[in-house]
């Protein structure tokens, strides 16, 4: 119990002091995870919507894979990306191993199936409602996708938050592809792992609390914006 008490004290001290190293770690965590989520949405929204709307051979398999990959183990993804980006690997010439870019790539791979699979379900449900009207208007594929994604924006906001939660919380992938390099690729989760391995349990837990606070803030912001807009458009 002692540790827990000290953990809260440490968390408070960290947040109050705004120590430069600490801010660097927080900043990198947000940069990596938000970038990864952005990429995941750019790919996942249209991908999920396309699987929902178009009948093509192997559609069932794609759907199954998307659902399955929602549970990709981060450490496995990290390992695969590590091997791909290693200098001895196929993409070695890019020199991306142990950089934040590698971490973004790994997290994007983790988050994209979540975004795509959930988008697929949401768009499928919405298409059941809008299908007749959009077909009656003879809307083309881009217009249809655009209409559905825009009208599903509140549900999709939740999907984005789910993706963000997955990214900001994982340690397996970023540890392997990033290397937890001080002042370069150290993020909150890898810092927590490091402090734990040094036996600084209270500090580790304190960082964990800070991580939760940050995740809470992001979620709260989105929820407030969502509610305000939803009230305007009346998601009946």
């Amino acid at each position, binding site marked *: 119990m002692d540790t827990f008490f000290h953990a809260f004290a440490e968390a408070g001290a960290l947040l109050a002091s705004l120590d430069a190293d600490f801010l660097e770690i927080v900043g990198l965590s947000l940069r990596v995870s938000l970038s990864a989520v952005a990429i995941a949405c750019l790919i996942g929204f249209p991908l999920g919507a396309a699987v929902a709307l178009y009948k093509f051979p192997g559609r069932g398999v794609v759907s199954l894979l998307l659902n399955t990959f929602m549970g990709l183990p981060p450490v496995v993804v990290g390992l695969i990306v590590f091997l791909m980006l290693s200098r001895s690997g196929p993409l070695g010439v890019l020199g991306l191993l142990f950089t934040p870019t590698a971490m973004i790539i790994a997290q994007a791979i983790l988050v994209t199936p979540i975004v795509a699979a959930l988008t697929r379900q949401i768009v499928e449900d919405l298409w059941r409602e809008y299908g007749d009207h959009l077909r*009656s*208007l003879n809307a083309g594929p881009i217009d249809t996708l655009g209409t559905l994604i825009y009208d599903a924006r509140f549900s999709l906001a939740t999907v984005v938050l789910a993706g963000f939660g997955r990214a900001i919380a994982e340690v397996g992938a970023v540890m392997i592809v990033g290397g937890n390099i001080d002042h370069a690729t150290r993020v909150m989760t890898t810092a927590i792992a490091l402090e734990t391995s040094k036996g600084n349990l209270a500090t580790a837990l304190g960082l964990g609390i800070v991580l939760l606070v940050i995740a809470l803030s992001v979620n709260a912001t989105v929820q407030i914006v969502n509610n305000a807009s939803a009230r305007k*458009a009346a998601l009946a």
Partner: protein
Amino acid sequence: MSAPQSILPLEIRRLVFESGDTRLLHDIDVTLSAGRRTIILGPNGAGKSLLLRLCHGLLKPTSGEIIWRGAGTRSRVIRHQAMVFQRPVMLRRTAIGNILHTLRIRDVPRRERRERAEAALALAGLSHLANRPARLMSGGEQQRLALARAWVTEPEVLFLDEPTASLDPAATRTVESLVEGFHAAGTKIIMATHDLGQARRLADDIVFLHKGRLLEFTPASEFFENPQTPEARAFTQGELLW
């Protein structure tokens, strides 16, 4: 509102529609021309909805043909048509947002959109609800919005699938007068209903369906005064038909 190349008359030849093992429409043969308000009349389950959706292109026939004049691609033809459903599909936007969406899909230049949307709203008596979320409007208001949406596409043919089935008499009256407005502007009306009174009020021609068969195609006055078939007779007398 007739296009330089009109898509009417519409010829329906030996139209059959099956779902699984069940045949739902049997050999429908009819030609529908411009200028006359056509009401598809019949009891529930007669196949009225199916017929409309087949004509509009939302369903593919099992066999038979649906031939529009100057038959081009499906997309060319459907641009001259609009459809209003029994339960209107309201996008998660404001009333005017719904109409603006249609205008955008139809590639109307951006500068013109607002003006045309507002004009359509005014016509439907919905100007005061322009910024109301469409899904919060009453059933009658939503149906009027659906008609305003159809209005801006300047359709040559307007399909309506029992548009007032769930509305009260006052709302029904308003919708009917909007439909009359389309007719006055030159749009061909093809409307399904099971409501005798509505058919009497609006029809020029009656297409009478029963159990997937076309039993009668007659001018409205003749149909109501002197129905030819026993089913039509029973129906016009208000008897239940299964």
